[in-house]
């Protein structure tokens, strides 16, 4: 291919542009893998570091490898590398998601470790091979540059353009790709660039010299890619369904991965900060029965949407069925505890609007300053029919003013003082969020509390408790964040720290009636399992066993699973009201669905103890985070 005979050397430009494009594509694949993993395994820093490390290592190996191959015909080798990258690049994110589906299914069967091993034994080889392929590209391109002009400078120029390409890719990824498309879509898009390069090499560099097999492969891969692009929304929905409904899939590998048209579509919205998913029907049979026992919500409005869940970046935030068990405690418990209705209230987060709806029940609250970072989520809460119905159009109230900004920075800079500060933020499962539970942040919170005022935050991970022992005592599970919160809040200098749980009574007569009345909550796979038992007597025996299990699960759900942790904070040491009082000065009082005097008393906890001495090793700081406490290697699951 070299042009040694011609008087004028051929232009280097095509090869340089190639170096730039290929480098950009490669780094985007790498970041796609890192992002997909950090959304599934919930620690951005670790996953980005690990993927970059593995990718760099594999690139090194690929570079050695490329010295061995392609000496004869670099263009032909590059063509094949591009075809391989097209295939593997477009499959990277789907492979990671499929691996996660397998993990989700296995951890549900209590095979966590095996599931983790399956997950990583799929994920890392994919990233590794991607790195090797990428590593072979650069030396090939440098050799091609050298063929055009036989001087070191030509190869170095190609190297320089390759580095520039990495930079372009690394900028495009967070600024354009993450904010505008699903990761699978992005993978297909980048893969099609690799494919175009392959086609270009075939047509303009190899011409007739391309082998029949290469030509056929390019055509076949192009056809597959085109089909995938046309059906992209189906593909995205397919993987979303595996994520959210894995426990409703049929048994076996085939059942887990066969498409399910009967499941509702997941409504996905994207913002600069997160993907927002509204998911319907995750536990369809559960809510009506449960709500009938504990809440009067369905009596008043039988058409209330009870089975919608809101997820941010795949992590559950709230669900419309049981949200009052959460929000009535969150809003009212601290006010009753403090014995006084606040006038000026600050709400951080809570973009669904449910908490603000509860606060608006007090005529005494004159203004609610609401801070959220994500305008898209607020927009959704104002316009989505389901969310708007559940939050009672709270954000349109004259008493609410929403400011779109970073709550951390707002509290750091503000000179305003509030009678009550409500902090309703996602659980700290990554360092970005851990900052909002840091000692520094709580110092700003404390400073912004007006005399006599309070702050409260939801701490769902403090409800991770072991089963009740004989004497009724319970231990904190390793994933319980209370030890971190306790020391961090103590370090921040709060005089009053009161953890509490939203708690329902388990001896409610209605609960037993529901359990007696129906074969409660057998899953489709359990029913199938029963059908397969031939002998009627054995089938009945098995059915009772399964029922007993699901009853136990229901009891557990009401007593333990629904426990939702909160922490009440005041700067000074304070006398608190241990009795339930309705503090709203209007005829119907607070108009509550679930919270009452008995449940109020049940909600004080003796499992969580505020430490006397601060252990500096447990304090969560932006300088040295002690959150998240969940092990980094353990993937999270949809629901």
């Amino acid at each position, binding site marked *: 291919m070299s042009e040694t005979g011609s008087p004028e050397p051929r232009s280097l430009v095509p090869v340089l542009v190639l170096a730039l494009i290929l480098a950009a594509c490669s780094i985007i694949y790498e970041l796609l893998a890192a992002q997909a993993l950090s959304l599934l395994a919930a620690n951005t820093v*670790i996953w980005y570091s690990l993927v970059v*490390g593995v990718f760099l290592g594999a690139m090194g190996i690929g570079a050695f490898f490329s010295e061995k191959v392609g000496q004869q015909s670099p263009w032909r080798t590059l063509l094949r590398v591009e075809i391989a990258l097209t295939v593997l690049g477009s499959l990277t994110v789907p492979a990671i998601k499929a691996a996660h589906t397998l993990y989700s299914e296995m951890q549900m069967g209590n095979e966590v470790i095996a599931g983790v091993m399956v997950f990583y034994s799929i994920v890392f080889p994919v990233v590794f091979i991607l790195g090797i392929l990428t590593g072979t590209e650069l030396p090939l391109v440098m050799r091609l540059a050298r063929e055009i002009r036989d001087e070191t400078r030509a190869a170095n120029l190609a*190297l320089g353009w390759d580095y520039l390409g990495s930079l372009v890719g690394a900028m495009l990824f*967070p*600024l354009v790709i993450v904010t505008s498309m699903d990761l699978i879509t992005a993978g297909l898009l980048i893969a099609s660039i690799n494919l175009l390069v392959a086609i270009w090499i075939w047509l303009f560099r190899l011409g007739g010299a391309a082998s029949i097999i290469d030509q056929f492969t390019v055509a076949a891969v192009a056809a597959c890619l085109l089909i995938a692009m046309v059906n992209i929304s189906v593909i995205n929905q397919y993987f979303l369904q595996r994520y959210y409904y894995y426990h409703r899939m049929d048994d076996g590998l085939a059942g887990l991965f066969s498409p399910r048209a009967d499941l509702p579509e997941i409504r996905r919205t994207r913002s600069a900060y997160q993907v927002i998913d509204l998911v319907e029907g995750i536990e369809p049979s559960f809510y009506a029965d449960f709500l009938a026992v504990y809440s009067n919500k369905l009596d008043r409005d039988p058409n209330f949407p009870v089975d919608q869940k809101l997820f941010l970046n795949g992590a559950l935030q709230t669900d419309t069925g049981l949200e009052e068990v959460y929000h009535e405690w969150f809003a009212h418990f601290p006010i009753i505890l403090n014995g006084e209705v606040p006038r000026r209230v600050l709400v951080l987060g809570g973009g669904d609007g449910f908490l603000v709806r509860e606060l608006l029940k007090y005529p005494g609250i004159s203004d609610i300053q609401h801070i959220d970072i994500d305008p898209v989520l607020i927009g959704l809460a104002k316009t989505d029919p389901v969310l708007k119905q559940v939050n009672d159009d709270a954000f349109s109230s004259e008493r609410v003013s929403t400011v779109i900004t970073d709550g951390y920075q707002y509290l750091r800079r503000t000179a305003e003082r509030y009678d009550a500060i409500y902090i309703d933020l996602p659980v700290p499962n990554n360092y*970005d969020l851990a900052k909002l539970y840091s000692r520094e942040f709580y110092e700003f919170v404390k400073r912004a509390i007006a005399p006599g005022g309070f702050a409260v935050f939801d701490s769902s991970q403090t409800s991770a408790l072991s089963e009740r022992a004989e004497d009724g005592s319970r231990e904190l599970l390793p994933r319980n964040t209370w030890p971190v919160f306790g020391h961090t809040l103590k370090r921040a200098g709060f005089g009053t720290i009161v953890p509490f749980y939203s708690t329902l009574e388990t001896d409610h007569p209605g609960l037993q009636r529901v359990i007696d009345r129906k074969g409660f909550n057998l899953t489709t796979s359990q029913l199938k399992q029963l059908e397969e038992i031939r002998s009627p007597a054995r089938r009945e025996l098995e059915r009772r066993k399964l029922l007993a299990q699901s009853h136990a699960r229901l009891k557990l759900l009401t007593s333990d699973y629904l426990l939702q942790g909160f922490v009440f904070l005041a700067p000074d040491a304070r006398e608190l009201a241990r009795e339930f009082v309705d503090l709203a000065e209007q005829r119907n009082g607070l108009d509550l669905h679930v919270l009452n005097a008995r449940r109020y008393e049940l909600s004080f906890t003796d499992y969580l103890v505020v430490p006397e001495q601060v252990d500096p090793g447990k304090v969560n*700081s*932006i300088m040295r985070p*002690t959150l998240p406490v969940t092990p980094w290697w353990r993937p999270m699951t949809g629901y």
Partner: protein
Amino acid sequence: MYAVAEENQQVSLPLLGFTFLLAFCSIVYELLLGQTLSAFLGNTVLRYSVTIGLYMFSMGIGALLAGERILARPVLSLQFLEIALALLGGVSVPLVFFIDLLDAPAWLLSIVAHLLIIVIGVLTGLEIPLLIEVRAEVKNAASRILGVDYIGAFVGTVAFALWFYPKLGIFATAIFTASINALVGLLLPLYVRRYQEASISQPMMIVQGIILLVLLVVLLNYSTIEEAGIELYIGK
């Protein structure tokens, strides 16, 4: 010097060890800056992607900048580079933190941090050709040193994510890593003299020694200094 002649055909283990440590230090600096940006300005994904992209890019620029003048005097060049890297690495986090304390606008903080990322990247990119040049007569020097460089970067990323950041914290990590860098900066020229007839700059050795001493003093008192920093930050 017969011993030297015997091992001439291999890149020696100590040199590979130094390469490993330098790659390790550089990637830790970069991740520290990415994490500091993310701690002060938010959006981890953006910070990490841009940091990694800028690092690779500026390393490439550094490699391209390694011209004959620099390569002709590898010992002096390495001495200078390690002084600069230990200094920049050690100063990086405290500097960004200080700018944030001054209530400076976010763009200023962002520019300074990204400049640090680029400069550290360029200096690191210069390092590799120099280390290769030290043993240029060995046939596989380039691939051995590059390979160890990758391994150092990988170990650095993992160590940062699993140990440095959650256990030591950003401040102590910056000082600790810079100390390693300064130590290598002292030992490497002495070691390289086995292969190169070049002279070592005494003033630069003294500067590097002082840097190492200061870093060690800071490291021994890091919790006091960090505490004072946090108290300034929260406005006490």
